[in-house]
């Protein structure tokens, strides 16, 4: 087993274990901080998929943005609402948890089914891409490819997302604005 494989399995284990901790811990702040570990190790896994740009974007957006936002939301929320959360009955099959448990189990079944049904080595599009030499190598500069595709093939989705974000920004600024005295 090469060093790459060792690192891969270590990262995968950290991602799974910290993810489990995030869900299972009763200690809210710690699970938010543990989420940081999960996101970071998933970013590491992205590097193995030759998606280094996605990995770094994950760190910028989730660790630098979303996680900090989560923490701020946690710090600013009142104590009563957090105590109310702890009163939710905790049995696995209680009324509050049953739908979530069902969805989670169904999704896991689906993933497992796909994993065992599909022979990943011999998929049509993978073999044809291999035959045509249409592959990304470790030494390739992926970011140029991403930039060109974003500005040509996927320009419309990109612009739609930016309009959506613009609307969110304007809305947020409007909500945060000082209320006019009536």
């Amino acid at each position, binding site marked *: 087993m090469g*060093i790459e494989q060792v690192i891969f399995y270590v990262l995968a284990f950290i991602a799974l274990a910290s993810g489990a901790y995030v869900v299972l811990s009763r200690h809210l*702040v*710690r699970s938010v*901080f543990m989420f*940081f570990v999960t996101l*970071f190790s998933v970013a590491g896994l992205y590097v193995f998929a030759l998606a*280094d*740009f996605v990995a*770094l*974007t994950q*760190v*910028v957006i989730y*660790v*630098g*943005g979303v*996680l*900090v936002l989560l*923490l*701020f939301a946690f*710090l600013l929320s009142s104590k009563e609402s957090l105590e109310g959360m702890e009163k939710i009955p905790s049995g696995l099959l209680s009324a509050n948890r049953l739908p979530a448990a069902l969805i989670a189990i169904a999704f896991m079944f689906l993933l497992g089914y796909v994993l065992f049904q599909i022979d990943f080595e011999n998929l049509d599009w993978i073999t044809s891409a291999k035959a045509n030499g249409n592959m990304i190598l470790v030494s390739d*500069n*992926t*970011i140029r490819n991403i930039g060109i595709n974003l500005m040509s093939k996927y320009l419309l989705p990109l612009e739609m997302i930016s309009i959506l974000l613009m609307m969110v920004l304007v809305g947020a600024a409007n909500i945060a604005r000082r209320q006019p005295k009536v």
Partner: protein
Amino acid sequence: MNFYLIYFLVAIAIFGFIATFSLVSVYAERKISAFIQDRLGPMEVGKYGWLQTAADILKLIQKEYIVPALADKVLFTIAPVIIFVAVYLGFVALPWAPSLVPASMNIGVFYVFAIISVEAVGILMAGWGSNNKYSLLGAVRSVAQMVSYEIPIGFVIISAVMISQSLDLQVINYNQGILATQEIKFLGFLNVNHIGGVLAWNVFKAPHLLVAYVIYFIASLAECNRAPFDLPEAESELIGGFHTEYTGLRFAFIFLAEYAMMFLVAMLGVTLFLGGWNTPLPNIGSLHLADYTTGTFWGIFWVMAKCLLVVAAQMWIRWTLPRLRVDQLMTLCWKVLTPLAFACLVVSGLWRLILLSA
């Protein structure tokens, strides 16, 4: 196996550099502040007090680790490590000389920008873990400030990258001197590929990057939580901010991270705007000053010289300007720096389209 040995050696070398730099710059900071305030500064330990910081670090190492009784012990212990490691990892991508870079990657700029943002999580961890209202307020202030100032920094970095046409810090460096592979035009019209020197730096290739560098410099002071943006540790209001409860080696790590961060942002700015390891001396006629002063040794020398000058300017500003209020801090970021950074971005795009494509 030698391969991995080199990795470890590089990591140790970077750490050694950060530690030495912090020792020297703490001494420099005390001497500069003394000079500005018309005092002498440390004079007792060693000649002119030059052993003062070594004595300080010895004292810090011997101190007891104190964990407050009600603190979240795990978070409290991990936080300084995360703060330091975030800054330490940033050094990995920064080039020191032609063909001398710890890890060459084609998205180096983005990597440094991304990894710095991890520091915010460490600071919040320290603030929350301390279970102290001053620490928490300091951490919240610090993170709000860092997240806000990341926006102007991001936009000026993009405007420099648009001129350089690469996210690889080493390529950005190459294209600001005589070793360039692309055409360099001083102020957009005069070809200076063979003259090099100061004329080939990004700030002179496209003069609006001078404005961009000033924005970068101001915003990087806020990223380092240094005066005039040191509200997170405003001692008159918050005792010591997020590191109030820390003692001994843990405090030393937070301190180390602060000084490492100063050098990191200085080095990133130098690389993006001020020519990185390129010499400021141009080739004049038959006097090939730029050719003489380009190389591995000279590269390290120029990077160090430029970065230390920038760090000295950071210290000079710290001891000259008073601290901003919170609302002034946010006004400066959102109403002054961010629109200016946007303007730089637009000018960069036009520059690229109109001047360089013609």
